[in-house]
């Protein structure tokens, strides 16, 4: 599919001016501006691609000129590709202005290939986009037919004959090769198609013949799908768009039922689900939600999407309604049927569902489980991993408690740790000793009992720049009974030799109960 006037269509869509006004888009090229795209009206005036802007202005001073914005063009192309997902799951981008759609096995759903093409063109035209569609056995041939062919629809087995008459530019060659071919007097595909291959390769490079083979179907060319292909898909189309949230959710539940049957037949459950909502005006919303355990229960799938839609909020605006809703299982895992006991509900499944729901609502990184790390640095000693990702086995190898040998009556690690240690003012009786009093959050605490120091040196790989200082930790109890975990950063002596102006800095790192 070729979006012939992508850039100009984009601008005209936004400004709502009559299409008769000639518009050209210019880009800088070798210290001058030249035309890189133009609309039909401008083409009718005799303006051409790659023409310098000065020439165009000289011919028609009243031209409407815009600067090229490849980024915006790319976004529009991707939006169109998103929308094309409604026709086939396999859509590939062909920048700057083309799309590949693999419609094998999809065409009959829309009343045949011809009807499908007409439907796409019609809907795109209503959106203000002009497109040309080529339809052929191979991607290369379709590309050629869309841009250069007089027959857009190449029948099966007719690939070779239809390519013959087309110019060599239809083979997706770069400019250098094309110039070289033109210099050799080769203009049309018919000129090269039966020539001996060895001299052609020697002269024009391997790429040339590969393009020819791809167009003819001698060499396979795979369309690179833009999105991962889901393992299971269930979809529903509506003649009248639906907009109410309850309707959408009800639809998702029905789709989940269909999906559940498919999954059950294969003994699998979904780990990552995606609901794609196709709005009538072509916008597509994709809502994804992951699960901690493989899942295929429709009710639970619906609950997950209730949470997901609730957080999506305004970014998921139904506008004039959705005409297609699709539910796909992107990642699946084996899920064996479980004998349901007579004892009642299974608590673990309920917990897994709660974890999924909270993760769907707040994001999977916000609901975490703590997994111990093998390090002495307090802030790195545990990692907070998404609860959905932590399966039983991971959490099992717990911290070796012996390393924190209990020689104290009180716990040696605090129950709360500040993610950013808070700087305090502290007074110590001897430079290396524990603090006698400290001021934290503008309150002075008199220390009556301390334990420490517990000296924790940074690991050498964290010390690469020489700034990671050793810490002396103290467990400290104040007169009021407030117990905190303090540390002094840096050692007198060896770590302060190089910094004569260094003063010890104290921090509060954690709170004991």
């Amino acid at each position: 599919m070729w979006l012939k006037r992508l850039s100009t269509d984009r601008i005209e869509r936004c400004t709502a001016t009559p299409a008769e006004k000639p518009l050209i888009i210019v880009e800088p090229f070798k210290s001058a501006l030249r035309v890189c795209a133009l609309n039909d009206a401008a083409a009718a005036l005799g303006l051409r691609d790659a023409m310098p802007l000065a020439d165009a202005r000289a011919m028609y001073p009243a031209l409407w000129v815009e600067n090229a914005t490849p980024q915006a063009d790319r976004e529009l192309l991707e939006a169109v590709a998103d929308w094309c997902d409604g026709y086939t799951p396999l859509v590939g981008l062909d920048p700057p202005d083309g799309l590949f759609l693999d419609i094998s096995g999809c065409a009959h759903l829309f009343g045949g290939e011809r009807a499908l093409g007409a439907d796409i063109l019609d809907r795109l035209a209503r959106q203000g986009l002009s497109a040309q569609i080529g339809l052929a056995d191979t991607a290369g041939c379709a590309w050629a037919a869309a841009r250069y062919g007089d027959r857009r629809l190449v029948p099966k087995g007719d690939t070779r004959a239809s390519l013959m008459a087309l110019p060599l530019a239809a083979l997706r060659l770069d400019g250098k090769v094309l110039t070289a071919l033109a210099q050799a007097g080769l203009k049309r595909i018919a000129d090269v198609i039966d020539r001996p291959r060895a001299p052609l390769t020697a002269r024009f490079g391997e790429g040339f013949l590969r393009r020819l083979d791809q167009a003819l179907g001698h060499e396979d060319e795979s369309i690179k799908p833009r999105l991962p292909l889901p393992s299971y898909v269930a979809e529903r189309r509506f003649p009248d768009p639906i907009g109410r949230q309850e309707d959408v959710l009800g639809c998702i539940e029905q789709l989940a039922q269909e999906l559940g049957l498919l999954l059950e037949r294969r003994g699998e459950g979904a780990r990552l689900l995606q609901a794609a909502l196709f709005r009538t005006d072509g916008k597509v919303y994709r809502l994804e939600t992951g699960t901690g355990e493989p899942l295929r229960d429709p009710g639970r799938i619906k609950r997950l999407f209730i949470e997901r839609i609730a957080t999506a909020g305004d970014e998921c605006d139904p506008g004039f309604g959705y005409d297609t809703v699709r539910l796909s299982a992107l990642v699946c895992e084996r899920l064996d049927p479980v004998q349901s006991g007579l004892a009642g509900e299974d608590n673990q499944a309920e917990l897994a569902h709660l974890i999924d729901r909270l993760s769907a609502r707040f994001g999977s990184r916000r609901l975490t489980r703590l997994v111990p790390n093998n390090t002495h640095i307090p802030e790195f000693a545990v990692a907070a991993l998404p609860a959905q990702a932590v399966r039983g086995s991971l959490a099992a190898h717990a911290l070796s408690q012996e390393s924190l040998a209990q020689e104290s009556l009180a716990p040696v690690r605090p129950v709360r740790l500040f993610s950013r240690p808070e700087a305090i003012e502290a007074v110590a009786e001897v430079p290396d000793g524990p603090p006698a009093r400290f001021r934290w959050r503008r309150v002075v605490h008199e220390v009556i009992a301390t334990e420490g120091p517990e000296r924790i040196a940074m690991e050498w790989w964290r010390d690469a720049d020489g700034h990671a200082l050793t810490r002396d930790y103290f467990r400290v109890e104040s007169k009021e009974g407030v117990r905190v975990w303090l540390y002094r950063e840096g050692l007198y002596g060896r770590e302060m030799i190089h910094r004569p102006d260094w003063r010890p800095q104290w921090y509060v790192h954690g709170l004991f109960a």
Partner: protein
Amino acid sequence: MTAAMPATLHRLRQAVAKIEGQETDLCSGSPVLALGIRTVDALLQGGLAAASLHDIAPAAVRDVGAAAGFALALAARAAKSGGDTLCIQTDFAAIESGDVYGPGCDLFGLQSSRLLILKVSRPLDALWAMEEALKCRALASVIVELPHDGPLADLTATRRLTLAAREGGSFGFLLRHRPSSFTGSVETRWEVAAAPSRPDQFGGLGRTAFVLSLTKNRHGAAGRWPVVWNHHDRDFSALSFGVAEAAVDRPDRTLYSHAG
């Protein structure tokens, strides 16, 4: 009050619930969570009631750590019979009082591998998540931590949470950062202050000590007790205010001489 009374009352309550046709969880598992101190448990008629909401606040701003510790201690006792614990914190509360620290929880008596931690940005989200979580039977307890005095957790909100807790049968602990003046539909309300611990014979820190004030109690009078938390046995005991023993010179300890 005799020891038989709580049991009798419990049986009577179940009978009433059955007559009212109310689905009750009181009969399954442990209906109450005893603190292990006889005077306190007697006032609470056996212990903290399960399937209900309990309000915990520090007596002063500096006692936030102690209040968090008390909530954790209760959760540790609740998790004795299995089940996970969910801690819900707003981002601001985490800045104020620190993140829940795994190794510390392990040492304090609550297995950190059974701990779920949820961070949310708004207090409203925290209450919503708590309501959802309380309905889940697989959790032993849910702790929600609100910054300041938690103005959102008012009568209506706590009523909702209580209903949710009744459905799920787990403990809900509402941890505020300041004592609040709101009337809430809670079973008990505690004000926790840190107390100086009784030092060990070497002059080091002793077991974690609190002063608990029970300011609201559905089943009886209020009270105030100094208590000690034994994190090995996950047990509370009464703190006897004796004169601390004179600190003795302590020899170098192997742990610290190695650590350097």
